[in-house]
Every structure is written in C-alpha cells, then in structure tokens.
C-alpha cells in the first residue's frame, strides 16, 4: 500500500503554486464569507465578482496591474449601490441587480473588442489557477495577511455590527466605516479568487463554505474557522480532481464546495424532520 497517489500531483511546480493559491483563496473567502452570510450580503458578493471584470478589462487596456482595476471597480460598485439605494424608490437588492449586468456587460464588451479575446475571456470567467505565477502568489499572501490582520483587529466589531446594528451604533462604533471595511475586504478577496476560480465561480467560494459551516456550528467563531478550513479543503480536493480526471480546476473546486454544502444541508434537514417527529410523538395522541 503506497500513498504515492496523494503526493503525485505536487511533483509539478505549477501544481505546487496552484495548491498555495487555492488554499489561500479558499481560506480567505471562507472566513470572510461568514460575515457576508450573517450580514445577508450574498447578492452583493455575487455582484462584485462580476463587476470587477470591467476593472480587469480597463486595467488591461490601460496597461495597469489587473488587481488595481478590479479593486477600483469593487469600490465603484460599493459606492453606486449606496447611491442608488439612497434615492428611496429602489431597494438595495434592485440596486445590486442593476449594477451587476450593466458593469459586467460593459466589461465583457470591452474584452470582446480586444485581441485574443476568447482565451482571455475564459481565463476571467473560469480562472486559470494552473497558470499562477510567483507574483500572483505574493499578492495572494499579502492579501491573506491583510485580511487576517483586519479580522484580528476588527473581527469582533464586524460581528457585533452584523448581530445588532443599532446597539453597535449606540456604543459609539462607526457602523458605516465598518461596513466599508467589510466590503473592502470582500473586494480584496475577490481579486485573489478571480485568479483561482474565475469570476463566475467566486460566489461558490464566498457562500458555500459559510453556508455549510452555519449548518454545523452554533457559535460564530468556530463557524469562521470551519468555513476557512472547508474553503481550503475544497481547493485541495478540486486540484486532485483536476490532476486525475482532467477537468477544469475552477469548476472542480466550486463543485467540491457545492457537494459538501448539499451533504450538510441534507444532514441538517434530516435532523429537523427527526426532531419534528419526536415532538409529535412526545405530544401523544389527543
């Protein structure tokens, strides 16, 4: 009995780099996703992952770093959602729903106008984790360090705002600043994950691990830790699938996340039915 098959994939340099990128992106998105989940911001995360494509396209045309353009568009999205919602006639949900197709459509149109369009578009949509460079890894590590630092410093404040906004405000916290911090961190993570799984599947990493963890944990911080571990684990599992079954890495990682989430939800649903049956049986015949 040998465990060669476990180590085989990592003999190639590009797979080792992909492993680091997948673990960093998965853990980052998993942990941040918990704040996204408890704040009810899933649509916002989905929207940002699409609108930054316009930033990527603009940065490419201007010859600037891609991550800079993506971060700029993430900021534009945050501000525009608040501006549209402030009018009072359109809900935040609608505001996000306006920005997603508008900016994403503009981004796709721009990419379609440039040379080498098809391959570039596919890289943006589904990621290109097997082509990760050392510079990408340095960016991912820096973002991971920044997000970890921010969560260590302001994690409990962010959790407080999620749980009880008005109390947090009454306690003297700047709720708006904390909102911006969270959205900024999500935007940073999105830039990293764009490389790993592409913009189409970013939501899987941002929403999947936290949803799974929420069904298995009762308290918040264990949920964050579990979600980070699940995100990293999905990255590793996805890369194994890529190596052995020759499937796209982005879809494989996203599908690993999805499988775990579906399994956890079935377990949770089963438990609930069990409890209900027990409650009815306990009440006895009337």
């Amino acid at each position, binding site marked *: 009995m040998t465990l060669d098959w476990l180590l085989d994939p990592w003999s190639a340099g590009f797979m080792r780099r992909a492993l680091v990128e997948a673990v960093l992106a998965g853990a980052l998105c998993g942990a941040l996703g918990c704040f996204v989940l408890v704040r009810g911001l899933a649509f916002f995360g989905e929207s940002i992952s699409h609108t930054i494509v316009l930033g990527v396209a603009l940065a490419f045309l201007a010859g600037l770093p891609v991550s800079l353009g993506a971060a700029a568009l993430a900021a534009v999205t945050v501000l525009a959602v608040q501006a549209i919602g402030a009018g*009072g*006639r359109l*809900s935040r949900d609608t505001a996000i729903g306006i920005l997603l197709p508008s900016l994403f459509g503009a981004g796709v149109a721009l990419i379609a106008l440039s040379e080498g369009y098809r391959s570039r578009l596919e890289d943006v949509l589904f990621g290109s984790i097997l082509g990760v460079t050392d510079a990408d890894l340095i960016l991912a590590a820096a973002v991971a360090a920044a997000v970890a630092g921010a969560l260590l410093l302001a994690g409990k404040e962010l959790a407080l705002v999620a749980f009880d906004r008005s109390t947090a405000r009454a306690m003297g916290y700047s709720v708006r600043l904390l909102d911006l911090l969270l959205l900024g961190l999500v935007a940073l993570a999105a830039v990293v994950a764009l490389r790993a799984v592409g913009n189409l599947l970013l939501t899987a990493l941002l929403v999947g691990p936290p949803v799974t963890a929420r069904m298995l944990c009762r308290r918040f911080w264990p949920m964050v830790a579990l979600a980070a571990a699940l995100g990293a684990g999905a990255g590793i599992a996805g890369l194994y699938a890529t190596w052995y079954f020759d499937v796209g890495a982005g879809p494989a990682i996203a599908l690993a996340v999805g499988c775990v989430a579906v399994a956890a939800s079935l377990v949770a649903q089963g438990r609930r039915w069990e409890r209900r049956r027990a*409650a009815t049986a306990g*009440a006895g015949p*009337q």
Partner: protein
Amino acid sequence: MKRAAAGSPPAIVALDLSVAYEGRPALTGVTFSVPAGTLAGVLGPNGAGKTTLLRALLGVVSHTGSVEVNGSTSYVPQLSAVDRTFPVDALGVVLMGRYPRLGWLRAPRANDRRVAAELLDQMGLSDRARSPFASLSGGQRQRVLVARALAQEGEVMLLDEPLTGIDVASQEVVLQVLADHCADGHTVCMTTHDLAQAARVCDRLLILDGRLVAEGPTREVFRPEIIRAAYRAELLSLDGETALVHHGVHPAP
C-alpha cells in the same frame, strides 16, 4: 340599520380555541362570543396572543377547537406589514379592497371607484386621493388601510393595533368611522395597547394572557383586579387617566 337586537345570532363564536406555533402554545382554551353590531376590544400584554386570535378568526392559522364567524370578514393588518415603497396612490389602495369581489377577469367599474372615493372622503382624505401612499403620514396611511377594509364590505371587521403609533387626530377619525360602522349593524373587533382608550370606546372587552382572562361588557370587565391579573401590574388611576405600573421584568411570552 339599528344595532342588532338581543337574541340575534352572535357575529363571532369561539369554543375552546387553541393555537400553537411549532409546538409552542400561543393561545389555549379560549371561549367567547361577540354579539353582532358591537365594537369589541382585545386587550393583553405583549405576547398575549392578540394577533394570533385575529389570525385564527380569519382562518389563516391552524387551530383546535371551533371558531365561527357569521358573515364575511375584512381585515386591517398592522401598519408595519405594508410595502411603503410600492407605486400606488391612496385611492388605488382603497380600490384594492374591491379586488377580491372582482376576481381575475373583471376590471374595477365606476361604482367601485365611487365607493372608494366616498370612503376616502369619510376618512377626511379626499384631497390626498392622488398622492402616492409613500408620501402620506403614518396616521393618514392607517386611515387609508381602514378605508380599504371598509371597501371590502364585510360583515365583521378585524383590526390589528389600528391606533398604535398614529397621531391623535387620525385616531379620532378612525374611532368615529368604526363607531358609525357598528351603528350600521356591522361587528368590529380590534386589538389595542391603550387601556384607557379601549375602556372609553369599546362596547365589550376581551382580555387575553395566553388564555382568556375575562370577557364581557366593558363596564363589567374593566376592573382593576382583572387588569392586574392580566398584566401582572398595578393599575393607577389619576383624574380619569389610567396608567399601568409594572412590577419587575415583563413576563416572558
């Protein structure tokens, strides 16, 4: 029409009514009746089951025991339940009260519009008929919702906290309209927080605390020992103003 004479069948009859949400009892063993043509007030502390009682009378929650409402109902839910940003004007909201009788195929006719306009006039809002619902004050919105229920032309009207959080002028308009509605032979049943107001305007009171504490004509039921039992608090009366003084923490619902 005059108020229904004694001996005519009651508008609402509940026998041993119980409601539970996911195994937790909200209302247990409630038995009462409301004669036709009366204005009945439902009182009780928070979590006493006031809204649950209305929902049982409407038939939208499952219950044990029996509930009988003689005639069709119209309903005024709590003001907070409506979508204030919906693009509709005051007259449009009142007109919605006619929709159930129109069904899918018929459009509102001139008669429906006339009824809606008259009801708005009764509520003192004829000059706001074309104003967006969102632009009205809280009290004006509540008056529009009461007008919508009147447009349903049901025999029994159920209102959930119609007077909470609205200005005094609007409260007076609503109470006057409800009194007139009863005088026409209709039955009105409303939940309220305001003990003094309930004592002043209601013909009958129903006092709840997860179960029925007391029910009957106001002057028989509105007595300090009964109120104290329901609210677990001291009733204070100063120059006709009535106030509650709570002991310790609020009882858990």
